[in-house]
């Protein structure tokens, strides 16, 4: 591919939000006729960078050049007139209108008597046909199409806007393999017409199947720009998580593991799945054991946890607890069977910011009793005293509003809340994300203590070495599938898990054949 001039050049972009530097001197170059993938873990700054480009966020420092000219865009409409269109993860179309109207909205063909619908629908049909969607009837309501096709209609819309740069922000997260392939066909067609495409995805296979160039971000910093074929998967993952391969090898090897407890699992699921969330998975949880879920962001970790907890209803599969069949389809049923789930979303699904530490701690216990039977103050104080000291919540003031505590201490309060329900199974989704090192070590240690006392813990973290250190058994997920189950202990390290993730799909003929075909060609 000849090295042409970049159509978009962002250099030294910095953006600060109160208390955080979201982007620190980040650069990005988009070339016509290329698919460029933006890689990075959660919080790396991918969406912030996209919003800086389209003018949704104001940049503090740096320069954006579009076709060589310095420009500052002021929002979606301005970006569109500069030839930059964005297609988001959620389909942003109007389901109440027809396909053709959605494609043409704002660009309808007008004549003397207002909008000429015949010509408008014809133009929409022509645009759809260019993207291989000629079989769609532009007069059909959009809502009758599956989500994946709606996503493609959204892309046709950007064609009408005559876009030179197309940003696709995680468009594949809810698509199946065939739908992804359809999307990729459209993307390749556009690329060959000279459109510069910025692609964001967490699926490594997809990234390697479609992209010509990669930019890696980590913690708001620029890690590097690479040609896709110059960087193999293991290297890419280590760039994303910021540890080089050698360091990954030494890190996280677990010294010892608990002796396998009783052979009969406490919880056993066979083939549970949910469309768009996770493919069929078998998972066993034993008493006195920490099971870790490892995988990159978007691999289906949280989705699996939500399925086990009943926050989402499984489509298929069978669950047994203590050997008898159990139906866990709502969180209430899970709680009744003593399964507790601490969400990764501490702020929205976890603590209640304005309630005190005491009120937050007793919340789950109170919820299980029902509102008609308030927990006596004496019992509340007993719970509060027990968990505040066991977990070391600081400051040790039960009446302080929880929002005034640090993130680590909020997390301890949450942990205490679920422990107060005396669960048999505790699911911890990202319990250590975004908290300081000290609190993190305390929580990790306490999790081990809980397992030693006989609790069954399902531990989820995006830090693979943390999962390795915590877990007796590790289930590796990738692209919403379980790809391996490893016994913890000697021989398993962060590096070996990265290798498993990186090599999956390369030698295994069963996985996403359609997508992989592209890798080899």
């Amino acid at each position, binding site marked *: 591919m000849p090295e042409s001039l970049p159509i978009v050049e962002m250099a030294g972009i910095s953006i600060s939000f109160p208390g955080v530097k979201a982007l620190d001197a980040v650069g990005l170059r988009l070339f016509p006729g290329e698919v460029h993938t933006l890689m990075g873990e959660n919080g790396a700054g991918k969406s912030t960078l996209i919003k800086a480009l389209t003018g949704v966020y104001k940049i503090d420092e740096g320069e954006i050049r579009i076709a060589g000219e310095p420009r500052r865009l002021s929002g*979606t*409409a301005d*970006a*569109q007139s500069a030839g930059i269109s*964005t297609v*988001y993860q959620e389909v*942003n*179309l*109007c*389901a*109440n*209108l027809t396909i053709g*109207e959605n494609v043409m*909205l*704002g660009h*309808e063909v*007008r004549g003397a*008597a*207002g*909008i000429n619908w*015949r010509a408008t*629908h*014809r133009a929409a*049909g*022509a645009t*759809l*046909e260019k993207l291989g969607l*000629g*079989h*769609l*009837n*532009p*007069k*059909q*309501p959009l*809502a*009758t199409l599956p989500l994946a096709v709606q996503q493609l209609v959204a892309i046709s*819309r950007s064609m009408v*806007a005559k876009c030179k740069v197309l940003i696709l922000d995680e468009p594949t997260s809810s698509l199946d393999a065939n739908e992804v392939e359809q999307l990729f066909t459209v993307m390749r067609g556009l690329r060959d017409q000279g459109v510069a495409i910025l692609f964001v995805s967490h699926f490594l296979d997809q990234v390697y199947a479609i992209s010509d160039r990669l930019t890696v971000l980590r913690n708001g910093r620029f890690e590097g720009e690479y040609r896709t074929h110059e960087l193999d998967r293991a290297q890419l993952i280590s760039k994303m998580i910021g540890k080089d391969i050698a360091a990954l090898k030494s890190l996280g090897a677990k010294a010892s593991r608990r002796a396998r407890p009783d052979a009969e699992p406490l919880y056993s699921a066979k083939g549970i799945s949910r469309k768009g969330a996770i493919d069929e998975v078998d998972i066993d949880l034993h008493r006195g054991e920490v099971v870790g879920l490892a995988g990159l962001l978007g691999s289906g970790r949280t989705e699996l946890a939500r399925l086990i907890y009943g926050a989402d209803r499984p489509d298929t599969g069978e669950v047994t607890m203590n050997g008898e069949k159990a139906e866990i389809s709502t969180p209430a049923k899970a709680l009744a069977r003593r399964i507790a789930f601490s969400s990764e979303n501490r702020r929205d699904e976890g603590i209640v910011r304005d309630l005190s530490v005491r009120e937050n701690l007793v919340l789950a216990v109170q919820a299980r009793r029902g509102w008609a039977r308030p927990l006596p103050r004496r019992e509340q104080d007993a719970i509060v005293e027990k968990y505040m000291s066991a977990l070391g919540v600081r400051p040790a003031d039960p009446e302080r509003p929880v929002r005034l505590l640090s993130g680590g201490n909020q997390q301890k309060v949450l942990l205490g809340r679920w422990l107060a329900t005396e669960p048999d199974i505790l699911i911890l989704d990202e319990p250590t994300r975004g908290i300081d090192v000290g609190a993190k070590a305390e929580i990790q240690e306490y999790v081990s203590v809980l397992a030693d006392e006989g609790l069954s813990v399902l531990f989820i973290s995006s830090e693979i070495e943390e999962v390795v250190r915590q877990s007796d058994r590790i289930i590796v997920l990738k692209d919403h599938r379980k790809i391996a189950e490893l016994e913890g202990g000697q021989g398993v390290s962060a590096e070996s898990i990265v290798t498993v993730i990186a090599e999956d799909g390369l030698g295994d003929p069963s996985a996403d054949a359609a997508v992989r075909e592209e890798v080899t060609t």
Partner: protein
Amino acid sequence: MSALTTHPTAEPTGVRALAKRLSLHLDTLPTAAAVVIFIGMIVYGEAAYGRIVQFNTLSNLLINNAHLVILTVGLTFVILTGGIDLSVGAVIAFSSVAGVMLMNAGWNPWLAMLLMVLIGTAFGAASGVLVQYFHVQPFIATLAMMFLGRGLASILSTVPERLADDSPLRSLGTQIEIYDGPKVDDIVITPGVIIAAIVVAAAFFVLHRTRTGRTVYAIGGSEQSAALMGLPVAATKMWVYIISGTLSGLAAVVYTARLGSAQNITGIGWELDAIAATVIGGTLLTGGAGFVLGSVVGALVLGLMNVLITRDGGIPPEATTIITGGILLVFVLLQRAVLARRRE
């Protein structure tokens, strides 16, 4: 590359074809139902009481409901975006009382009429600013405007203000005989009816033939999507409230011209009549689907219902609201069914 090639390969036949056509136009179903009910009411009225299907009855139906049709058109715009305007009845009261008093005080009647319309525009603009720039819920913003309008009208006067007999405003209410039928069975219209017809035609053009109109539908479908598509969401939302307010002012002119007087208690509950007419006409209260012609039919259904109840004589007038409520409920349930089908 003609539009034909994009059609599905084989057109299904018979019942299947009809079902398919229907599924493509599911959102027209409530409006079609409104038309069916309207016709049904006429047929029933003719059979039960007689003298319904004749020129003077139908003429009077239009003359007596011209103001409601204008109001309903304005509300259709607002409701299509997913909003609501509760202020229209109070705006009519303030606008008409202010207009009549100014004319009686010697103002140029045409200037006063223009002012009556502009009062509506000002109220609509205020609602729009509250909704769009102060992020007040449309319900609350227009409720505030409703209290404001009613209060201002009461400050001006609490007794009926009679229009002078020679006021040019009355000319807008003059009955013009177009066709001289046997006895009193004539086709009669007023300038008010003509104004209403022009408003309906203009609204139809704007909603279906301009980008602003399509943006109204897009906002009703998903405001966030409309913004992300780069459509002028803020300006369009301002416009719908301004249109609704302006048409309230115009409805005040038409109504006052017909009645010849104005009072601060005029128009109490008319906002709800107009909302009911819009919903009966097939517009979804959540926005995004509906037709201005449907709303006109909805307004005429309400008007015709009053005629039938008067003719019957046996139905107490108090029952009118119960019947209105019943019809409304049927339509809302019908819409829910349609929505449920659309989600499938």
